[in-house]
């Protein structure tokens, strides 16, 4: 199963969820309808006729009211959480880790997260620490990899060693790539909607019991008292109905969640090739009497978000959102457990099995000797291997510390972005352009030139990782500051020479994510479900790539069409260079990014076929592909497309 299929599977699961949700709501409506008939039957059977269960008008009323209440509960929570992973993390009481932190535990955490991000080719997510939680647990939240947040408890920070921490973080990253996060947020919404009935029942019972209790006795005996009692009983029924609804909700939550935890564990082992780390973390959780328990009030409804069970229930088997720890350890590392290993989830040596196994994701992790074929690259999207993690950690060590420090701090991160762009203009010796000197203050200019000195020592393989590391710091700018930053980037884009695809790619990477963040348009609207209407955009994209790939533009273009020619009947031709300039390419990319997953898969496949047509991948091609896949939301791990 590849990246796109995993994302789609998450969507199918959502459909399943909607079905269960509808079922639960219907059940609740019917129960409340019957309860109201029982408690308030006098109003319905006033004519003294037979007790009947059929009052269509009343049923409709109940259905509408209950439906509206549940829906508003769900929508409220979903809208609250749709602000992205940070909203979830803050709701759980998380504190954002400052990338330039001086705390050594936090530094280690940032290093591990940065390594994993660079390895998998996504921007570094916001990292949160739950200061109040002493047990070991972690979570990932957000709608897409662009607004993801990763949170760990203080216990995780203090009690795990680096390998174990890496295992946990890899587990969370695989949730990001599996599209689990979006699904998880919807699940929280659904649970909240059902929970509201329960809360409503409590409110009714309490308010009547307190305000009504005094009055009941003094009432002109009879009706009023009965009414109050009936209302209390009605409230209690709501509590019970809501509770039963919650039980069903939990069952849905746990059924879907448990299976995904196994998948994420398997992926984490595949990412790090170190079953010991993850197993060690699970083991440490198991050794604690209260496991991974989270004390925050939201722990229960968000239980499926966490690395390990965040609450303990008496009916553990039925409602556990996570498989038992022993089973997970056994699945990861059979040698650590006494009983027979479960082959299905066995890791490490059964790499091949995983690829063929229907439940496994990330088929094509590059082994050391794999030939670079389009299929291999496609399979590697949204996945990481040990080799990538190593390469990432190597790059992080190679980049001079002042540059990394700069990326960790908003002011210098901003300067760093300009420094990187100016270095990428390709002029030697590179210089700060006149327009920039005019628009910025002396401090910024000084910082930019200082950073450029360091960048000159290195090569362009540093640039993309630096952009990825700088992303959380850049998000710390205020709206006003971002506007200024964006102005600079716009001027830069205008001045970019049309053949400098690398600079274009870098700019696109920065702007694409930050725009999404600052305009708060987190969820890209999907407008295209078919490839056919995208013919023009595809020709622009493939033509631009074809020219970048060298002399045989026509051949590269044709090769790019191979995987998609079934879907595009009109004969597409290589556009002249003037028609696929940066402006056209930019527009085409924006349009293409609004397509559904299956369509994206073909686009990415075409892109990869195009650049590999001549078996030589130039640096320009590699970087441009990185930027394109970034915009399309399909991260390619580092080093998979190797420039030679």
């Amino acid at each position, binding site marked *: 199963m590849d990246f796109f299929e995993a994302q789609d599977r998450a969507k199918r699961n959502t459909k399943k969820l909607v079905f269960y949700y509808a079922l639960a709501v219907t059940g609740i409506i019917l129960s409340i309808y019957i309860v109201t008939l029982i408690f308030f039957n006098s109003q319905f059977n006033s004519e003294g006729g037979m007790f009947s269960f059929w009052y269509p008008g009343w049923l409709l009323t109940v259905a509408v009211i209950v439906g*509206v209440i549940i829906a508003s509960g769900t929508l409220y929570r979903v809208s609250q959480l749709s602000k992205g992973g940070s909203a979830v993390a803050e709701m759980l009481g998380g504190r954002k880790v400052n990338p330039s932190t001086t705390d050594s535990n936090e530094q280690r955490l940032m290093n591990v997260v940065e390594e994993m991000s660079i390895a998998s080719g996504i921007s570094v997510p916001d990292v949160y620490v739950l200061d109040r939680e002493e047990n070991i647990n972690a979570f990932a939240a957000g709608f897409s990899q662009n607004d993801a947040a990763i949170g760990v408890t203080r216990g995780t920070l203090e009690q795990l060693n680096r390998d174990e921490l890496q295992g946990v973080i890899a587990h969370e990253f695989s949730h990001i790539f599996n599209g689990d996060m979006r699904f998880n947020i919807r699940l929280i919404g659904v649970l909240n909607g059902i929970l509201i009935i329960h809360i409503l029942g409590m409110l009714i019972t309490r308010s009547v019991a307190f305000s009504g209790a005094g009055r009941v006795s003094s009432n002109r005996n009879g009706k009023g008292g009965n009414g109050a009692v009936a209302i209390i009983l009605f409230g209690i029924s709501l509590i019970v109905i809501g509770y039963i609804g919650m039980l069903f909700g939990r069952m849905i939550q746990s059924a879907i969640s448990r299976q995904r935890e196994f998948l994420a564990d398997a992926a984490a082992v595949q990412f790090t090739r170190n079953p010991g780390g993850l197993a060690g973390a699970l083991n440490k959780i198991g050794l604690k009497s209260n496991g991974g328990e989270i004390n925050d009030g939201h722990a229960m409804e968000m239980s499926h978000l966490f690395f390990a069970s965040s609450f303990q229930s008496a009916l553990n088997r039925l409602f556990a959102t996570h498989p038992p720890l022993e089973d997970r350890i056994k699945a990861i590392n059979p040698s650590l457990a006494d009983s027979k290993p479960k082959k299905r989830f066995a890791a490490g040596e059964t790499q091949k099995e995983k690829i063929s196994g229907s439940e496994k994701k990330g088929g094509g992790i590059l082994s050391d000797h794999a030939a670079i074929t389009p299929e291999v690259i496609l399979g590697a999207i949204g996945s990481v291997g040990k080799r990538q993690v190593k390469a990432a950690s190597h790059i992080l060590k190679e980049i001079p510390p002042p540059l990394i420090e700069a990326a960790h*701090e908003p002011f210098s991160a901003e300067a760093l972005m300009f420094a990187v762009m100016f270095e990428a203009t390709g002029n030697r010796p590179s210089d700060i352009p006149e327009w920039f000197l005019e628009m910025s203050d002396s401090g910024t200019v000084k910082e930019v030139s200082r950073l450029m000195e360091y960048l000159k020592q290195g090569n362009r393989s540093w640039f993309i990782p630096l952009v990825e590391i700088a992303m959380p710091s850049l998000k710390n700018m205020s709206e006003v500051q971002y506007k200024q930053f964006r102005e600079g980037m716009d001027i830069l884009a205008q001045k970019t020479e049309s053949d400098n695809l690398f600079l274009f790619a870098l700019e696109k990477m920065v702007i694409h994510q930050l725009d999404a963040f600052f305009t708060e348009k987190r969820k890209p609207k999907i407008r295209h479900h078919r490839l056919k209407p995208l013919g023009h955009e595809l020709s622009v994209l493939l033509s631009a790539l074809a020219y970048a790939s060298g002399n045989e533009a026509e051949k590269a273009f044709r090769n790019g069409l191979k995987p998609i020619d079934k879907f595009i009947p009109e004969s597409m031709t290589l556009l002249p260079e003037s028609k696929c300039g940066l402006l056209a390419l930019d527009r085409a990319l924006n349009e293409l990014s609004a397509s559904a997953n299956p369509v994206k898969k073909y686009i990415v496949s075409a892109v990869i076929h195009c650049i590999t047509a001549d078996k030589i991948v130039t640096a320009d091609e590699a970087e441009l592909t990185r930027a394109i896949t970034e915009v399309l939301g399909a991260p390619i791990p580092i080093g998979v497309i190797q420039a030679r």
Partner: protein
Amino acid sequence: MVASIIILVIILILIGWSVGIYNKLVSFRNRFKNAFSQIDVQLKRRYDLIPNLVEVAKNYMKHERETLEAVIQARNQAQQAEQNVAGQPENAEAMSNLAGAESQLSGALGRLFALSENYPELKANQNMMQLSEELTSTENKVAFARQAFNDAVMNYNIYREKFPNVIFANAFGFSEARQFTVDSPDEREAPKVSF
């Protein structure tokens, strides 16, 4: 019956609405708290740099003891104020104390740098050059982070003061936050050192 259900629904909507305002307030407050942590790191770095700088300057500026001591004293006060603010940037009083202490410190540093013009050997000292360079770059970072913080505080305050949010804000204990403004003119421009 129907009437009571309608009332119930209205009550529910009101509760939901106020919870919404509450959550929004919390998220605005979180935003400027995060922004302050950015300032905080740089302020701390600055407080660490200043004693070193004074130590180097001491060797050359033998007759400027008072100025040097004033810098150290202002630095200690500012550090104290910063520690008071760190956990609770929403505390307006602590924030204004910090702003005051920072203004003092900037003034004292400004005088030190002005006097250092008279000591060409100090200006030529490698350590001094490096330290003041670092100090300037830290000041720039502080200024940038402070702008982000002030913008975040402004957004919070504007949201807080809107009607009816202000009623909820007062009821929930969301007091007006204070911007971090340093009024010393020297501070606006980071201390200019022309070595």
